[in-house]
């Protein structure tokens, strides 16, 4: 069935306890946001420093995803301000704000790509999954594994090529021609950043699935559950 983000969010709280009872045999007492792999990293036995390193890397990924999302939110605020300024300048002084059209167009790139890692973490993408829903858990695991491997490799490769494209635009001094010339590299640079966060998120989800048997929707339910959100707010 199609699962819109709102549906996932609302179901999260009631499913959380059940889900974690199933996974661990007893109710989860850890903060929800750290269930799944993000808590398993802490309990890796034998090598405490490796566990700490993985834990820190996971926290860093979470923070970077959130920062990217904030940058994206700031981009929409800036686009709004520039456009309103342009309308008022035109209406009151019969002038156009130089570069407003170009900056708004370029900033839109951030809005598309920078929020991808965060959306994937929350499993907020629009899915169909009619056949997937009918599969037994084992088959679901195999399907998700295949998807995550393919997506991780593809987006890692496109991260590289889009970074190369951004670098080339920087070196060549690529510009958008309008009333003024606006360089494009800073907008292009947002694409590899967003895609890198997305492919890393796929990798984390893949490891989580293989090591801890946590399906994507289950990880997202933990993400949305009130306890996890409270923890997130506190951080």
């Amino acid at each position, binding site marked *: *069935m*199609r*699962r*819109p*983000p*709102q*549906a*996932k969010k*609302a*179901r999260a709280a*009631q499913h959380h306890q059940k889900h974690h009872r199933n996974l661990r045999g007893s109710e989860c007492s850890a903060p929800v946001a750290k269930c799944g792999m993000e808590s398993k990293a802490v309990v890796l036995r034998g090598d405490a420093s490796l566990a700490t390193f993985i834990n820190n890397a996971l926290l860093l990924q979470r923070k970077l995803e959130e920062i990217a999302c904030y940058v*994206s*939110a*700031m981009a*929409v605020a800036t*686009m*709004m*301000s520039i*456009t*309103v300024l*342009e*309308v008022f300048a035109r209406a009151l002084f019969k002038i156009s704000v130089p570069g407003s059209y170009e900056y*708004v*167009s370029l900033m*839109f*790139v951030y*809005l*598309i*790509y*920078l*929020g*991808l890692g*965060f*959306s994937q973490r929350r499993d907020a*993408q*629009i*899915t*169909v*999954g*009619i*056949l*997937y829903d009918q599969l037994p858990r084992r088959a679901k695991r195999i*399907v*998700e594994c295949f*998807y995550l491997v*393919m*997506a991780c490799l*593809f987006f890692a490769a*496109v991260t*590289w*090529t*889009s*970074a190369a*494209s*951004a670098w080339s*635009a920087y070196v060549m001094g690529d510009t958008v021609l309008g009333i003024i010339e606006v360089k*494009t590299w800073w*907008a*292009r640079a947002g*694409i590899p950043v967003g895609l890198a966060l997305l492919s890393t998120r796929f990798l984390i989800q893949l490891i989580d699935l293989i090591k801890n048997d946590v399906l994507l929707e289950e990880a997202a339910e933990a993400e949305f559950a009130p306890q996890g959100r409270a923890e997130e707010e506190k951080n």
Partner: protein
Amino acid sequence: MMETLQIPLVLGTVALLMVMRVPVGISLLLSGALGFAFIRGTTITLDTIGGRLFDIGSGYALSAVPLFLLMGHVAAKAGITQDIYRAARAWLGHMKGSVVFATTVAAVAFAACSGSTTSSTAVFGRVAIPEMLRLNVNRKLAAGCVATVGTLAGMIPPSINLIVYGIIARESIPKLLIAGIIPGLLTAFAYLVMIYIRVSRNPELAPALPKASIEERVNSLKDVWSFLALGGVVIGGIYAGIITPTEAGAIGAVGAFLIALLRKRLSFPVLREVFLDTAQTTSVIFIILVGALIFSSYLAVSGASGAVSQFILGLDMPMMGIVCIYVLLLLVLGCLVDPVSVMFLTVPIFVPPLIALGAHPIWLAIVIVKTLEIGLITPPVGLNAFVLKGVVPSLSLREIFGGVWWFLQVEIITLILIMLIPAIATFLPELAL
């Protein structure tokens, strides 16, 4: 051998990935890349996609979408929905149809501030359903009403689907937005007639409320007039051709912020949530757009799009017959996949030959978007029903789809009316712009 099998293989891959719960945008992107890899090789494909992501993602006209999303999110988070709903209830609650009437009218008003069908359904699910159930409205009628009236936001400007359509089909976005006004209002009117008839036959479906006093009615308008005026300015500005849709979105968002701020409805956490929600929703919608663009480029390069277009032109059928076939295809696809990707996949194939056969571009756009909106409530997988189930878990899908069925019949009648009388869609844009 591989060349013959290439297109079916790519189409099979995209279908398989989607039914296996791979996100729609990523399914389209991966399959499109696979198709290009068959034609151009892996290295060139990856290089091309890496470069094209920027061209797809930078665009002024598309920037209207996040700005209208922002305006809708501010209106929803600042509690405007509740105010609109309260006012509609005060004015219409005593009539036959009671709060169901009020919900429909409030949804029309909210649609002028929001372009997203799912957002509109989600906010009305939270506000209207508890109230309707408390007032003993029939559960099916309440659920069906809210799941369906959300689709009005997809037709009444600022409609995000119409903006996206304008970009795909290279049609004038202001004209499309204006064209959505009469079909949207006509649909809402048809809902009201259906509710009135049903409740007249069985008043227990929606018991009428006591008539609100004049003072209560006037007071209820205090909280909503400014937002309605803002919606009017946004639509009026586009209608008069004074501002572009992107500018209208920005003015709408700033206006919504100012009104919410003056009413002391904005706190820092609300502000943070509004911007983050907008950022997240935009990336969710636009990754589909990116995937669909790559996929439709593959269809064009492989020759599949051209072959289907030629086939359509070669059919010995009148234009209306082909439109009917297209509408049926959209109904099936629209209840399975989201409107944006369906538009990207089918519009470049079907629309040019239909226009060549004499279809009015604006009329065709409204028919397509209207059909896709119907797909959003069509059982068994209509997206809006699942959105409503998500925000009101106590409602069963059987109840929601049971109630939707009444509205679905009205929707089909309205669609047929729009198909038979193109002036419903074309009158305003031809008059205004």
